[in-house]
């Protein structure tokens, strides 16, 4: 194109980076999905016709919550380490995140086992069962998806292949992981505080 006489911009032309914008938009969509599950949960509180009630079978998940929220801190520290070139520290914090995430999932598994085997609460028992397993299950599936991504990065990390230049990709996963945590806070409030 030939040059067109036009007003020259005074500031340099910079636009946001693709990775973080993409993951934030994805999180917008995911939030809408969770919002519907939460709305269904809130709507059906107290409306089960039969079966165990939340108060009878639920206990506030202290350990699980501590695990997951700490993992947000460790992943933040991991990406900061990577940005500063501290590869060893990055790997240690990243693996800590993986472990804490696994701890959360183990806690969920234990809780569900108790609910099903001892309290006979399944997704088809009553409205509480349906909404509980749906919402907590949706969140847990997102934790699992996050764990898959964390493990892939961990594998690359253990093989010594990660460099500071990859920090933006780690950032994207980290933003997703923080989202999963925020959703957990909402789930805990709705299910274990309001719902009981």
């Amino acid at each position, binding site marked *: 194109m030939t040059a067109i006489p036009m007003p020259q911009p005074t500031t340099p032309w910079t*636009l946001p980076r693709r990775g973080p914008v993409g993951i934030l938009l994805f999180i917008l969509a995911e939030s809408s999905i969770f919002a*519907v599950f939460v709305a269904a949960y809130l709507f059906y509180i107290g409306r089960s*016709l039969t079966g165990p009630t939340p108060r009878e079978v639920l206990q506030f998940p202290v350990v699980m919550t501590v695990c997951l929220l700490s993992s947000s801190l460790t992943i933040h520290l991991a990406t900061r380490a990577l940005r500063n070139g501290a590869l060893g520290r990055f790997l240690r914090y990243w693996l800590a995140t993986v472990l804490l995430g696994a701890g959360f999932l183990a806690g969920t598994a234990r809780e569900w086992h108790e609910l099903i085997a001892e309290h006979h609460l399944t997704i088809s028992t009553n409205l509480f069962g349906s909404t509980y397993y749906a919402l907590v299950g949706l969140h847990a599936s997102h934790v699992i998806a996050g764990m898959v991504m964390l493990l892939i990065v961990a594998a690359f990390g253990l093989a010594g292949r990660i460099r500071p230049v990859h920090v933006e990709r780690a950032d994207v996963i980290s933003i997703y992981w923080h989202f999963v945590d925020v959703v957990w806070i909402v789930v805990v409030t709705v299910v274990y505080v309001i719902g009981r």
Partner: protein
Amino acid sequence: MTTTRFPIAAPAEESTPSVFDRLHEWVITVDHKRLGIMYIVFALGFLVIGGLEATLIRLQLAVPDNHVVSAQTFNTLFTMHGTTMVFLVGMPILAGFANYLVPLQIGTRDLAFPRLNSFAFWVTCFGGLLLYSSFLTAPALFGGAAAPDVGWFGYAPLTEPTYSRGNATDYWVIGLIIVGFGSIAGAVNIATTILTMRTKGMTLGRMPLFTWITLVVQCMILVAVSPLTAALILLLLDRGLGAHFFDTQAGGSAVLWQHFFWIFGHPEVYVLMLPGFGFLSEIIPVFSRKVIFGYPVMVAATVAIGFISLGVWAHHMFSVGMSPAANTYFAIATGLVGVPTGIKLFNWIGTMWGGRIQLRTPMLFAIAVLVQFLIAGITGVMLSVVPFDWQLTDTYFVVAHFHFVLVGSLLFAIFAAVYYWYPKATGRMLSERLGKWHFWLFLVGFNLTFIPQHFAGMLGMPRRVYTFLPERGLEIWNLASSIGVAFQLAGVACFVWNLIRSYRRGAVAGNDPWDAWTLEWATSSPPPAYNFAELPVVGSRRPLWDLKHPEDPDWQYE
């Protein structure tokens, strides 16, 4: 330095790629232009299938007490017709246009995530084929159809296992979940591209209106398609695992499904219509030889529609038994969303006013949209008047209204867009003669089919009925409506023939056959894989106008 020990074979002769090679190229492509074309071809294929479903529907309803198809088959036909047209025609064809045009219009080389682009297309393809495979599976229990027959909005508890036995409804649910993933992936991709990859000098305020509208639409998709995906998952839990979300026998709520569905469903119709407005906002200025009238307000109106449309959903539910306060709120919100929509119509008229209008085929379709959308908007306002809606909802009046939106406005706008951008994508012009035949045949057919339906609705004919009784005053309207189909089929036949024939025999288009002003016309037709030899720098909303009129550039007036 080592020397090789074995003789290296000379490179193979340059041979023309075989059919398989070419097919392979298309299957593995991540090029936004190719994927855009694939989306459009996919959608046009389903347009024909959905049109055949509609043809059967109108054949059955041409006369009262007809026996062209059984009740069961009819119920499957209207379900699949609606589902196909919304999810397998509307969404993909608009995704295709956005895919093709956005990088060209913002002066970049591809979308932000090319592999995600390919994923989104193939996932959409898979979902559509899964849905249609239901026609081939064995019939369900108790005579239930194998293909879904629950209506395109699948109200509960009709969709619960008790009332929808067998797997027909499961194909519907799972097919739509999968197609929804495609839409969301595409939306993330296109929105990220617009926000992060515009060429130097193209501030948000200098983007072409089609791109602006696309940005708003993609954000709406993120927020609106997700509730549908969520509701479908809940329904799948009901059907597959015995949950009770919409199981009224266990205390579940049928109305909750309606709320969730329409929280998706209403923004969805704007997701479908707004890109059509985007097409008009590009085409009308070029064929009036005038800049769009009121660009800033057009952008503001689009954003306003985006937000307000999220708050009007229950105007689809006025007969459900909501309180007077709720009914009144939704009437107000619905009336409000009509204001920015009307403003756009006036801005297009303002663009034509004082122009030098060229009545080429794209412009013919665009002008038809103006009048047909006016009618659609007016009947929409009628439906927002709640007590009037209590008579009109769930009748053929509503069917007429939304076909005026989706066919009379959106499909006509899509036709305009195809005639306008086909030269860019293929390097050939479509035939004006065939285009005019297409236009007039389809114009007559569309209006003959859908204007009478307003009257059928006001005379007591509800929706989704496989037959109607004689002596109810409905015969003439239904017969006229069915006759219109013949004209529409003829028009579409002209269109398809035009597309095929012009590919080889159309006049060569050159870069800029319409003397237009946005960046896609600054490169060759078709563009090279890398789009632009040198990424452009822009200083106004119409960079090519500035180039062609250096003595009077746009940036002096914006």
